[in-house]
């Protein structure tokens, strides 16, 4: 009953999806979300064993500079996306690698 719906749709509202109609409300909701799925809004968490990180991202003589999270002591490291990466994915590619692969 915590859902913001009419009494007679309490059971169905979580399961059923409405058809899109002329109002364009359905597509608008989707587009609104799409517009927020940007590299500037998003965050990526990369998970692996410590030795794997060291092998891939660290140099042999230079250990990675891990921080410790305060509740469980989990080791983590935060790094901003490089500006090169961010600007590359900000634009829509003419043709993505996925499409090229299909040719």
């Amino acid at each position, binding site marked *: 009953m915590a859902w913001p719906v009419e009494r007679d749709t309490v059971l169905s509202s979580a399961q059923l999806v409405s058809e899109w109609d002329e109002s364009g*409300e359905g597509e608008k*909701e989707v587009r609104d979300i799409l517009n927020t*799925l940007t590299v500037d809004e998003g965050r*990526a968490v990369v998970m692996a064993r410590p030795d794997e990180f060291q092998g891939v991202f660290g140099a042999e003589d230079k250990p990675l500079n891990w921080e410790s999270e305060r509740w469980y002591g989990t080791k983590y490291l935060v790094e901003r996306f490089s500006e090169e*990466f961010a600007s590359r994915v900000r634009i829509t590619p003419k*043709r993505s690698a*996925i499409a090229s692969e299909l040719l």
Partner: protein
Amino acid sequence: MVFVQTIMSFHAIEVSFPLSYQPARWKYKPANFLAHFVGHEGPGSLHSYLKQKGWLTGLSSGPQNLAREFAMFKVTLHLTREGFCESFITSSLSEVWYNVSLQRTTVMLSSPFTSTCRFSDPQSFLLGIRRNSASLMRQGSDSPRNSARMIMQSGCQNTWRGLLNAILC
């Protein structure tokens, strides 16, 4: 980008974006709609591309309700040992954003949940074709429909053909 050490031996990337309170969007469920396309595993999908590369073992995508008035849209990629290297991680991440921007720039014809193509709808693939048909035409095919056929030959033809014709006609 956050690196987190695990105890269990696995490799994964989780990309998350903040979302508004989704129960208010109960009528059209836009986040589930997008999750359907991002997590699609058919030909031309993010999943099939990364898996073909040998980088991926599994991909899932969907909204996650975190608290009242707050949610996240998540895309989780489980990687193979080979997929876990700096350049492949970067490539996989770019493909996530390319997939999203591809959808942002395409014309959506209808909800994927309509009765005719419920839940098995290959629309994301079709949208990709629509978007790319112009460049395909430049490569010697004379019409978008033919270029679509060119692609079809590398995919599973029967499943897609009916819908393709319906959309490209």
